[in-house]
């Protein structure tokens, strides 16, 4: 690699930093209010069409949610100003242990290997989803 390439690469790096700073300053991300049940079900309907989940649990910070349909769990969580959804065996969620007021799920998915859900003060885990099971 010659000097001019290194200079161009360095200048590009600087330009990236400036553009990212501008994007952060502009505050033009999509609005992401705390999730409520209607919003979670909207996401579920798009991500897992046809899935009927009777019960919905929403994380204390409104950034994530879990739904259960039988032995299957459907998780939704915020990433930036968008959302990511995955399904996982309910047993995986049920056996997760709360730590520092949150549930940290390890998923077998290279695209989304980890999901974190904040628990409310004194909240029980797993959520009581028997009605949905």
């Amino acid at each position: 690699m010659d000097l001019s390439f290194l200079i161009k690469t360095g200048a590009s790096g600087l330009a990236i930093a400036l553009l990212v700073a501008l994007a952060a300053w502009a505050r033009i991300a999509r609005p992401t209010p705390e999730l409520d049940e209607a919003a979670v079900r909207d996401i579920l309907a798009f991500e897992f069409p046809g899935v009927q989940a009777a019960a919905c649990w929403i994380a204390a910070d409104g950034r994530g949610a879990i739904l259960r349909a039988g032995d299957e769990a459907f998780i939704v969580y915020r990433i930036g100003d968008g959302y990511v959804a995955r399904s996982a065996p309910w047993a995986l969620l049920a056996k997760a242990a709360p730590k520092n007021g949150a549930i940290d799920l390890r998923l077998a998915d290279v695209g989304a290997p980890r999901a974190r859900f904040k628990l409310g003060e004194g909240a029980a885990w797993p959520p009581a989803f028997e009605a949905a099971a």
Partner: protein
Amino acid sequence: MTFDPVTLATPFFILLVIAEILAAKFAKTRTHYEARDTATSLAMGLGSTVAGVLIGGLVAGVTLWVYQHRVFTIPMTAVWAWLAIFFLEDLTYYGFHRLSHERRFWWAAHVNHHSSQHYNLSTALRQTWTGGINGTWLLWMPLAFLGFPPAMIAIEKGISLVYQFWIHTEAIKRLPAPVEAVFNTPSHHRVHHARNPRYLDRNYAGILIIWDRMFGTFEPELDEEPPRYGIVKNLGDFNIVRVAFHEWIGIGRDLTKARSARDVLGYVFGPPGWRPDGEGTTSEDLRRAWRERVGAETDG
């Protein structure tokens, strides 16, 4: 001194990103930027440039070798030659792009361009790091074999790349009908970046949308169905290594589960989402399920 459209256009790319951000901020255009998403897209673009330099020598060498064995000698100074390469290169791009979506080995390199949940000018710069190693550049070799000079091919590829930058925007709704009929536009390309089942694997065009219309892969953008951007399973963080390599790792993991040569071929060269048991989520599976749902709702 070589003529490189992409290098020449880079300052304008930066200025247009700034303009799009400022327009969203002050003129309230329909555009969104999220800082970490923007950082990831731009860093992928920079990494792609570096990867391109690393593989560039090989590509240039092979192209020159093929050109030495050309059928015709096409003059770089002839207008008809530029007209011919404009259409032929754009058709080649269509083929490359379709392959890059419909077969997992090539999708693994291209997926990162689609992994943003945003659609703005920074998304245009979210380019592959691994596109050189999966050999798609070989698709342009027939042009050299025909007799187009390698510099001419490189320039036309650069023109196509520069053209495709400005269409990554939500700020432009629709262009006049004759333009929408012939050219790839922001509206057509929004469809291409959408993950709605209706829009999956549609509008592969580079500059001209006519190829999609000819080969049955065209889908218009509908006002009643706004595009939702990203990939079928959106990524769970902004880790740039994950963005660059997640599908390759996914292929590797799936290969450990393969039980036959059919499984191996399906996991590597089948459509993205393919599974040996037929329970996968390929674009066609998703589109079929969507059609059945829509049909059931209509019938109901």
